[in-house]
């Protein structure tokens, strides 16, 4: 009986959580449509997101391309298909690996930051102070961060993809003595707009989920310092899970469309 009650409570909590986040999304959209967005704050948030993640994404992207090429090269060489290496690596980076890896990094770095920042503002009554002074915290704090991550993530993914392809070229050049021109020609020969557009759309939704979950967890954080840590932690965990779920849906949808 106790087990059944436990499952019932878990399902009930899950459904309440889904309802709450749905209501949070509708509040964000309502405020966005009614009050617009503070461009100055949005620019500040975009700058912060880029500034926070750029070095990490550059290094990760570069190493990703390097390692992927080093690991795939020998297998392709067995079949005499080394010439396919640039195309295979660049396609897998642009379509799948780049977006997911960068989104996970941004979830860890930015999502947790948004969760902790908003939770800290909640705990120290800064959000309340903003509201009573006549500024809507949903418009000023939440919407700018959610839209900021949604805009910046596709740009960061494209940037990381470029670094990955550079890493892949350096690795391929060292191992197979391939020229830059030949590498780029083969790499971009297989990439079409049909590969890029779904990636950009997908990463926009990754960004939206990261910003939304971070902001939701922070905005409704429990009082006390424990609530700040909990908000940051659960923002990363839930954002990471949502990235994989969105990715799964995006793959299915793009298969159906194509």
């Amino acid at each position, binding site marked *: 009986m106790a087990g059944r009650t436990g499952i019932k409570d878990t399902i009930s909590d899950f459904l309440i959580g889904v309802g709450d986040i749905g209501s949070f999304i509708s509040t964000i959209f309502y405020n966005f449509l009614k009050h617009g967005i503070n461009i100055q704050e949005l620019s500040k948030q975009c700058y912060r997101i880029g500034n926070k993640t750029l070095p990490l994404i550059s290094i990760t992207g570069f190493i990703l391309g390097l390692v992927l090429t080093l690991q795939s090269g020998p297998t392709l060489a067995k079949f005499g298909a080394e010439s396919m290496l640039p195309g295979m690596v660049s396609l897998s980076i642009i379509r799948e690996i780049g977006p997911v890896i960068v989104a996970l990094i941004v979830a860890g770095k930015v999502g947790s930051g948004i969760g902790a920042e908003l939770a800290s503002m909640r705990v120290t009554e800064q959000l309340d102070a903003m509201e*009573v002074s006549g500024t809507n915290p949903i418009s000023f704090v939440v919407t700018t961060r959610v839209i900021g991550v949604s805009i910046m993530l596709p740009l960061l993914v494209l940037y990381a993809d470029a670094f990955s392809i550079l890493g892949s070229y350096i690795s391929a050049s060292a191992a197979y003595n391939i020229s830059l021109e030949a590498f780029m020609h083969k790499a971009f020969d297989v990439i079409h707009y049909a590969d890029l557009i779904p990636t950009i759309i997908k990463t926009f939704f990754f960004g939206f989920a990261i910003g939304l979950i971070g902001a939701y967890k922070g905005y409704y954080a429990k009082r006390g310092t424990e609530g700040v840590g909990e908000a940051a932690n659960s923002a990363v965990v839930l954002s990471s899970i949502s990235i994989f779920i969105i990715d799964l849906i995006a793959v299915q949808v793009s298969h159906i469309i194509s």
Partner: protein
Amino acid sequence: MDQPSINNIVLEVSGLKKSFGDFHILSGANLELREKENIVILGHSGTGKSVLFKCIVRLIEPDAGDINVLGENILALKDEKLTELRIKIGYVFQGGALYDSMSVRDNLEFPLKHTKGPGRSQAELNELVEEALSNVGLIKSIDKMPSELSGGMMKRIGLARTLIQKPNILLYDEPTTGLDPVTSGEISELILKVQEDYNTSSLIISHDIKCIEITANQVRVLKEGKFEAGGTLDEMKHHEDPFVNSFFK
């Protein structure tokens, strides 16, 4: 403190109820605040003093009752009208609630820049910020970050940020808690000075006898979600109810 002459009611709370689950915080609280009056609210922790303040500015929605602010039922207002009325009620938070990513100057400019109102030039903003900071005696801290300020300074700047919007009513949530006796006395004097300079009426949550002596025209004691007793400080000190009396021993 001297008693003000009979003035108009600026804030009226009647039959206010608020529960969180089975826990009844406010169970029919009634309160009247008049022009240029300072009422100090006393009560044990968890008796609903802060909840009362949050209901007044509608950070928390009450379950029942009425709240009339400057002749308007705040519970019936929405969006812009609610914002307009909220601006007339200054809320001074316990820890100051300064935006920690902004300097003192930006903290004070924030409510002026981000609420609907007359468009102001940077020179006008500077003038208003400097005036508010001078009134709380912290003009030298204008370019400091909140992390560089002491607890007392944060409370003063929190008050300056509230004053910059020229409110009619001020709600002070434990303005002297956690401060040394000297700073606590300075803040209490500042509350009085603000009342004189800005013609405000105030509700003050405090357990600090010195603060109560300096600031209170009237004292109200909250017990089990209702105002149990009320009167001047002298009347309360000699109140027959031992519960009320216990606050002054």
